[in-house]
């Protein structure tokens, strides 16, 4: 196993001689997407005319199907088959694993008469057109036996239980430290349930080739989906080929497969035809995972100079009764600020609602909405600048485990951000700045998010036409993975970008863990880099051992790669020539990356500082963003344009979290109030004016051989808190119940007599 020292030597990426690394090149697949020609899972060509499946969803929260009559639907125009739990083909029990190495267990659809949440699949219709499949739904008669359901998170918060296998993290003696503190904050924040609202719904196209099923599906993890389907069908995974080439947004919500995959595969087998199944927009809300609501109590105790003596973040969240998930909203607080006495922990409520799951920056995204506002309150109480307060509590080593930081530029992020944003123009007195009807205020918050490296592989083929083709069972969920892998491969081999191809999203390709937890670029990218290095060594050996090469007999270790050639001094040979001499298939190598043995001896995170200026309508309580700016440190940046898109996209999501995004469970039905994009409010263009971000120069040599880190989730962290702090600075109202909608702001203004 390698250690981080092995990564320290200069390499083609860190040397970046052709300048591809960091270059703001356009998306590799951008043209296909903007011209509408990138085939998404529902649109891929099929070997013969497909049938269309439609899933029927439960309309009770909990209970059982007492009766279901499919006969009318079965005889509806165009209908090929109709399934309920009574006649669906046999599938393995939920969670079952025939192969203990499967990354995911069986995920059966229509598996029983039990209804565990509103929106759960209860029937399936296969028809010649999507319209006929959907129209037949009205002909299905279902009677339910409903049982009592626990639906209202708020009423169970006080009885929340511990998280299985988890204990509170305690350092020092929080209670004693807190009560001995001169200045304290003790307040509770609430972050509501949120939905991913991806543009592309979950969708699958499936067909069988003999005893092997081919599925194109929209999923973030290739292996997870392949294994889940194989286990569900009770077949070895090599009889499932899963492809996922273009994905219209995942955000964690597509980290797993759903019933579209299972039912498409089953229906294709049963009908002998290709089958397409997509979730409706409603089903995307109701039948996929969501970010659970979190209640967070924060207690901070400081001395008169602002030095933190005690800090606690206690989070209560929820998940589905039979599907454990914990939104670790308190975890980030362990690594952020120094304080000798610390307490963080989570409690869990089980509800009979759809499954909670990962959503962009799980943990930090809601968590930072509390602590970062508590810090603002503390600064206010101390009469201190919020940045100065944070700098005062900047730790020298990770406060959770005393490990050294691989690199931590948080203070620089705050200082550069303050300067570029014009923080010195902030009037610290709330309500002091007006612009006509509007109260105007500024706020800031920090951002922190972990960095990870997982094992991954890649394949690379060099062909006689001089093209290098990277293949990897990796996904690009719209983040730019295709593009950065092309840049890494091009830079490693000294090839221009137009000679590099990237093929992703196929379970037949060397596996990578997929997209999630902002580990994608570092993990897949490092595997691509290592594979490129394997290719360099292979090519050097081929050249130096072949009498036909001008480099014959030279030391392979001395070879250089530039402009499509292998080079030594003034002698060179083109990679195309080398590859064609190797045979019709060219040269193929595989490579891999694994975490360094000692990687976790360092505390490794990405950091940032978020700044926002908002207006609060003094008449109506509407909050509008006026400008936003962030400075981030996230290792070496592979593509300035894509990294910024990821970061600003995250910041924008934070705007939504602060101001508009939330869903609620209707306690009468168990359904979400909002089940479409007209009711579930993500920010629109008009909400986002003057928003920008910069990324600091950085290389983290403990992270991976390229010194890069993830940027996909960092931008959302702290973003909403900066806005909430700006709202306070604007009008003097502290709202701790997100989102800060006009009704809440107005009520608070009224209460203050404003």
């Amino acid at each position: 196993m390698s250690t981080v020292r092995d990564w320290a030597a200069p390499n083609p990426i860190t040397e970046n001689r052709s300048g591809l690394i960091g270059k703001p090149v356009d998306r590799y697949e951008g043209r296909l997407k903007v011209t509408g020609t990138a085939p998404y899972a529902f649109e891929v060509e099929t070997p013969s005319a497909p049938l269309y499946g439609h899933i029927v969803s439960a309309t009770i929260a909990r209970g059982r199907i007492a009766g279901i009559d499919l006969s009318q639907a079965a005889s509806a125009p165009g209908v090929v088959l109709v399934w309920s739990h009574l006649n669906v083909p046999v599938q393995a029990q939920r969670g079952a694993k025939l192969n203990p190495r499967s990354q995911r267990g069986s995920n059966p659809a229509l598996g029983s008469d039990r209804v565990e949440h509103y929106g759960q699949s209860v029937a399936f219709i296969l028809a010649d057109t999507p319209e006929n499949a959907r129209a037949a739904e009205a002909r299905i008669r279902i009677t339910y036996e409903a049982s009592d359901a626990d639906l209202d998170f708020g009423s169970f918060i006080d009885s929340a239980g511990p998280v299985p296998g988890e204990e509170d993290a305690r350092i020092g003696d929080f209670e004693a430290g807190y009560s001995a503190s001169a200045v304290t904050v003790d307040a509770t924040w609430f972050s509501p349930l949120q939905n991913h609202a991806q543009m592309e719904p979950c969708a699958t196209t499936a067909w069988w080739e003999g005893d092997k099923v081919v599925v194109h599906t929209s999923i973030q993890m290739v292996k997870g989906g392949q294994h889940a389907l194989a286990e569900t069908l009770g077949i070895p995974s090599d009889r499932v080929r899963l492809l996922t080439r273009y994905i219209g947004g995942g955000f964690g919500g597509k980290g797993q497969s759903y019933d579209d995959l299972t039912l498409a595969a089953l229906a294709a087998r049963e009908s002998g035809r290709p089958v397409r199944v997509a979730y409706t927009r409603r089903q995307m809300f109701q039948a996929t995972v969501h970010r659970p609501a979190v209640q967070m109590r924060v207690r901070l105790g400081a001395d008169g100079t602002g030095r933190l003596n005690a800090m606690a973040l206690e989070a209560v969240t929820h998940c589905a009764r039979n599907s454990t998930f914990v939104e670790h909203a308190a975890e980030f607080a362990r690594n952020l600020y120094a304080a000798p006495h610390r307490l963080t922990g989570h409690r869990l409520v089980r509800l009979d609602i759809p499954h909670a799951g990962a959503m962009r920056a799980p943990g930090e995204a809601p968590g930072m909405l509390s602590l970062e506002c508590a810090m603002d309150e503390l600064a206010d109480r101390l009469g201190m600048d919020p940045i100065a307060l944070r700098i005062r509590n900047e730790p020298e080593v990770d406060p959770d485990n005393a490990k050294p930081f691989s690199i931590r530029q948080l203070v620089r992020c705050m200082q550069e951000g303050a300067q570029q944003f014009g923080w010195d123009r902030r009037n610290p007195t709330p309500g002091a700045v007006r612009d006509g009807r509007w109260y105007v205020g500024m706020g800031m918050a920090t951002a922190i998010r972990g960095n990870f490296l997982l094992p991954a592989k890649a394949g690379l083929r060099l062909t006689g036409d001089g093209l290098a083709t990277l293949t990897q069972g990796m996904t690009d969920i719209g983040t730019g993975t295709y593009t950065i892998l092309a840049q890494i491969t091009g830079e490693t081999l000294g090839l221009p970008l137009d000679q590099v191809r990237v093929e992703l999203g196929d379970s037949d390709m060397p596996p990578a863990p997929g997209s999630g937890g902002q580990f994608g670029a570092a993990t897949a990218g490092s595997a691509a880099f290592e594979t490129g290095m394997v290719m360099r060594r292979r090519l050097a050996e081929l050249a130096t051992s072949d009498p036909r090469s001008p480099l014959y007999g030279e030391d392979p270790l001395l070879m250089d790669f530039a402009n499509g050639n292998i080079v030594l001094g003034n002698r060179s040979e083109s990679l195309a020539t080398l590859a064609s001499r190797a045979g019709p298939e060219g040269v193929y190598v595989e490579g891999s990356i694994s975490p360094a043995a000692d990687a976790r001896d360092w505390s490794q995170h990405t950091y940032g500082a978020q700044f926002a200026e908002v207006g609060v309508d003094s008449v109506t309580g509407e909050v509008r963003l006026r400008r936003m700016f962030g400075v981030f440190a996230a290792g070496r940046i592979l593509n300035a344009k894509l990294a910024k898109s990821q970061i600003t996209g995250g910041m924008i999501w934070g705007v939504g979290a602060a101001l508009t995004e939330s869903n609620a469970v209707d306690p009468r039905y168990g359904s979400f109030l909002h089940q479409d994009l007209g009711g579930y409010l993500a920010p629109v263009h008009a909400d986002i004016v003057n928003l920008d971000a910069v990324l600091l120069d950085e290389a983290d040599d403990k992270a991976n051989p390229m010194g890069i880190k993830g940027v996909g989730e960092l931008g959302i962290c702290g973003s909403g808190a900066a806005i909430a702090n700006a709202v306070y600075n604007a009008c003097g109202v502290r709202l701790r119940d997100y989102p800060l909608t006009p009704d809440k702001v107005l009520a608070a203004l009224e209460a203050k007599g404003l």
Partner: protein
Amino acid sequence: MKPFAFERARNVDHALSLAAAAPGARFLAGGTNLLDLMKLEIEQPETLIDVGRLPLADISETAGGGLRIGALATNTVVASDPRVRSRYPVLARAILSGASVQLRNKASMGGNLMQRTRCAYFMDPAKPCNKRLPGSGCSAMGGLSQATALFGASEFCVAVSASDMSVALAVLDAEVETVRADGSVRRRPVETLHRLPGDAPQVDTDLAPDELILAVELPPPPSGGQVWRKVRARASYIGALASIAVAGDRVALGAVAARPWRARAAEAALAEGAAPREAAEAELVSASGEDGRKTLVRRLATDAIQESRKGSRS
């Protein structure tokens, strides 16, 4: 979506005779509301009569000094018409605060008036809703949705109208001109085009199924400032939490009732010399519903009336 027949009307008479012949038929203009509802199977017409190509898109001066706007003039065209912008700025602003530019390019005058409520439970076919399925109950009552009526609601329905444009039309005393298959032409004030729900919330207006909107007529603008304000949860592309149109001494509120709500009590108070806030409070005397919503309307109306008085009097 349920299968349906599709007819394209060649002229107005053709449209009307098609409508008279096919009882379950609906007119289709821009389709931005009707088609959405059909996809959700909330609307299930047997026949669609496409009136989109009828020559009803003109905007012309009336003899009385007003403006006649054809039922098929798009929202974009109306909002950018120089006569509308200079004489009826409240209408231009109201239209521009609605939907998105793409939708406004398709949305028609008639369709905008006739659009259905966006009550979250009306939009969810799995939920009881008296407007969608008479007698099934009203899920909005005791529900989570905040956008319920302050005025004119009944025990059967508390939904509000989603049209911004109609609030401005109501304050301008606009009238809707319709024609039926039997040739009869009628004019109704926009203010009362929509019924209050009463015990039949499924009936939005008293327009007959074969009654086609031909045009909206605006009388000359009243003297005094015009103000439009729309309060909303995000900066664009979302219905109002409350809206207000003020034109001279007239006030209309939006998103507070099943129709654009002319604030007659407030107008009467203003006529008697009441201050803006007193006028707003006078209107709210008859309001029922959540206090926060009333507070919003009080503050909004007070401020908008004040602003209209500051504005230049024409």
